[in-house]
């Protein structure tokens, strides 16, 4: 059993109060860390989770 990670050890930073100009003053490290976390959440790829094709009946012919 692995030790569970603390839930908020790396949660997203609220940037909504910053202007476009202020964003340019953020540390590289903070931004890169945040990107790493986003990639963790999405797997780094296309981030398409949910192609949902089975919820409704299909008229697909038998083949």
């Amino acid at each position, binding site marked *: *059993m*692995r030790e*569970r*990670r*603390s*839930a*908020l*050890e*790396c*949660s*997203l*930073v*609220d*940037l*909504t*109060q*910053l*202007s*476009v*100009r*202020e*964003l*340019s*003053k*953020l*540390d*590289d490290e*903070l*931004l*890169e860390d*945040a*990107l790493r*976390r*986003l990639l*963790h*959440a*999405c*797997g*780094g*790829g*296309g*981030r*398409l*989770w*949910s*192609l*949902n*094709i*089975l*919820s*409704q*009946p*299909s*008229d*697909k*012919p*038998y*083949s």
Partner: protein
Amino acid sequence: VESQHPQPALGQTVQLRRYRLTRNDLSALAAGNVSPRLAARLLSAELSKHELLFELVRRTASRRGSSADVARVKAATKMLEQIQTRKPKIIETIFTLPQFGAWAADCLLDRTSAAVSREEQGDSSAPFGFGYITAFAAVAALMARHPFELDVPMRSGIVTFPSLGQLHTEDADISGWVKVQFSGDQAMVISRSRTTAFPMAATSPSSSPDSRWVPVSRVNLAARGVTLSLALDAQDPFFDRFGLPLARLSEEDVLAWRKQLADAWKILVRTHRPKAKALAATLTSIVPLDHPSGECPISASSGWASGAIALSLQLDSLSLAETLTHEFHHLVLGAVEDIMPLYSYVDADLYYAPWRDDPRPFRELLQGAYAHLGVVAFWERQREIAKASDYGAAEIEFAYWRKVTLQAVETLNASDALTEAGLVFVSTMRARLASWRIEHVSDHAEAEAEEIIIEHYLRWRLTHLYPDPAAIEKLVRRWSAGLAAPDWFVTPAAVVKPDSLLSTARYGALKARHRDPALFRRYLQVRGKLPEADIAFLKGDYSKAVQGYLSRIRESHDLDAWVGLICVRYREAESDTMKALLKRAEVVASLHYRIREYGNSIPSPDELIEWLAASTE
């Protein structure tokens, strides 16, 4: 679930805060209860994510972009700064666009750098790169009526103004960069060969018709005081990430979409009001997809394009309401995951997801389970308000989804990959689903749901699971020697393979039986839609169905017939042995296949089942 993490600072003066979701917040969200306060928190987080992505793109462009891109990004950034000082809401609107996130993600995931040279050579299929930020800046400036001049990209004569529409210039064979100018009164798009006027009315909701201007349709729906306002956008180049072709909408198509959306919205507001309110706050764009002829309707969402739901026109408004609910949950969970991690690592294992024909990774199983928790809640409510004629279908949907979703959540709950927050989230999902499991549904509904569940599960196992060959050889030897079977239920784990799908026709017919009776009748009546044995099975003529399946299995290694046969046998005797058989169906089929290969007399499937089952008694 509280943060002890230090708050980051901006310079000496501004202290940045981190988003927090308390244990109660996580539990509410996991149960599908997205209050206005939580919806606002998630929306704010998604805006922060897009701001973060923007700044990362800006810095990445300055390090890796071409000199032309660097200049374009600088010009656009300056424009956005200027507009923000006067009209900050417009910049928020631009940053919130789902296509903004999709474009930024493409830049950061390096999908664009290889395309730069193609783009500069005028390749019309080259992806948009860093410089596409000018298109967003141009839209912001047009909305703010802020005079500007920017270079924006053109592909095959088409200039995209994200969220507004596309201008089709007469330079249909030209790709590259054109200048967009706005003097304060009139906007012009200037290419090397000509100048095209931009219809300024395009920036207002009541845009004037102009043959060169193809606006993004806006849909505003109001029902019982709840308004849904969204774009019906099948043209934005960054809505292609759903991996499915965008629909080409005629005027008639747009009307059909408006009608189905309006009717679905009434259902959602009338019956699922709190969710409808949260959906209205979250959804900004519907991306119409092609509905390939003969296929079932589709839908999709992407965490890089939060606020957008892509889907084909659904069977009816009730199906659309269900689909919107499903995709809404994906958007919610995407935002939760952006705020905090729910799992700390992802293994390479693939899992059974009852709503998919293919094996799914852990994170997709979590996403799917959460989306279907929303679907369970949807059908629970629909069941309560359904007319007598619709009650049966709603009850079967409820019985079906509550069982398969709980099954998936049990898998998730057993994982040690979950973080503390992830465990809170998944265990709450589990508790919510368990509470639905004790609600009464009729025996008929349970039985119909169970038949669909078993068919899908068996088909998935026989499609994707390959038992250990050594274990099968051992079984073959014992069978051939006339010995009793060993404890076959402990056959080593099978290998999951993602390919070779079996026909989904029987599954489609089983679902159509309660959802779409006309389609179900076509399954039974139209020659070639289903094999004869399946038709007998669906008509309840189990003896004839078994004969058909056995005959096909005698003739060849017919896995589809094995699925049908075990479905019938399970229906006839839902014993512990049969339940165990379900979890080893691929063993029986593989064993039968190997005995046949050895050229021995071919046993009947039932003989093999009995022989194996005897070892468990």
